[in-house]
């Protein structure tokens, strides 16, 4: 199925969860926040399965104050 990831279409497996997607993209789920359709998810919600057309963006935990 197709989702929109970081504003670009991306083909992912049917029924993939947020957690699986984040890991597939090589991010540690603890280090990112996930925005689904404009709303930030709680970390508890990462087991949620994605639907076709969902818009997903990652927000990185930036510790640098430079």
């Amino acid at each position, binding site marked *: 199925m197709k989702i929109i990831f970081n504003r670009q279409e991306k083909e992912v497996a049917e029924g993939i969860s947020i957690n699986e997607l984040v890991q597939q993209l090589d991010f*540690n789920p*603890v*280090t990112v*926040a996930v*925005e689904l359709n*404009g*709303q*930030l998810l*709680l*970390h*508890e919600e990462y087991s949620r399965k994605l639907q076709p057309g969902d818009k997903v*963006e990652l*927000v*990185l*935990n*930036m*510790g*640098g*104050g*430079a």
Partner: protein
Amino acid sequence: MVLTNEEIERYSRQIILKNIGGRGQERLKQGKVLIVGAGGLGSPVAYYLAAAGVGTLGIIDSDNVDLSNLQRQILHTTGRLGQPKAESARETLLALNPALTINTYRLRLGKENILDIIRDYDVIVDGVDNFPTRYLLNDACVMTGKTLVEGGVLQWDGLVMTIKPGQGPCYRCIFPEPPPPGAVPSCQEAGVVGPVPGVIGCIQATEVLKILLATGETLTGRLLIYNALEMRFREVEAGRNPGCPVCGDNPSIRELEEYAFVCETQCGR
């Protein structure tokens, strides 16, 4: 607190605004703001707050000015290499606005000193360069009900939000735990483009002014995310997490805890 003629002239371009005025300028003069870190974020924050006439600024930094800081940390100068950053910051800010009170703290915040220091300030600004202090600051501000203007940068990216305990999410609602050591690189390891903390720091300073003036809307319950490479800002809504370990309904963190500084990201600065 009455403004002098010189102050009215100095701040005339903002006093003219209807939601600032003389009354607002007096509020700024009475304001006390603590800036944690006199680096890439702390520099523009402190500079603009000093310029705007915020009466008392606290500057915390335990480091000395290094040549590699000067690409972005605009409070410091080549002539002050090796000097404590907190003192260098004070010198620059007083040269700009001699009437201010600038308190300097040459120390690293820890659970043993943080509550005593933040107690005296109205608003706290996060410009730290490491996760342990970032989480300590969040937890201390949540526990004492202090408003915290949070900012972070890395490479071409930045993030900013205003945490008002009880009125929206805290940092842990969004990122419950610090990343494991090494999972997220520091600016020292991964680099940062100078104007990126400049942009984020200017937004933090604007948030502080609005908080002191009690005007406008702050980035509470909203994260503003900046990507300079694509020159794009986006906003994400975030609510308080009832399961948050520090500000949730049943918090598991009831006393300040400190995460270890790990050499991989903190040493050799």
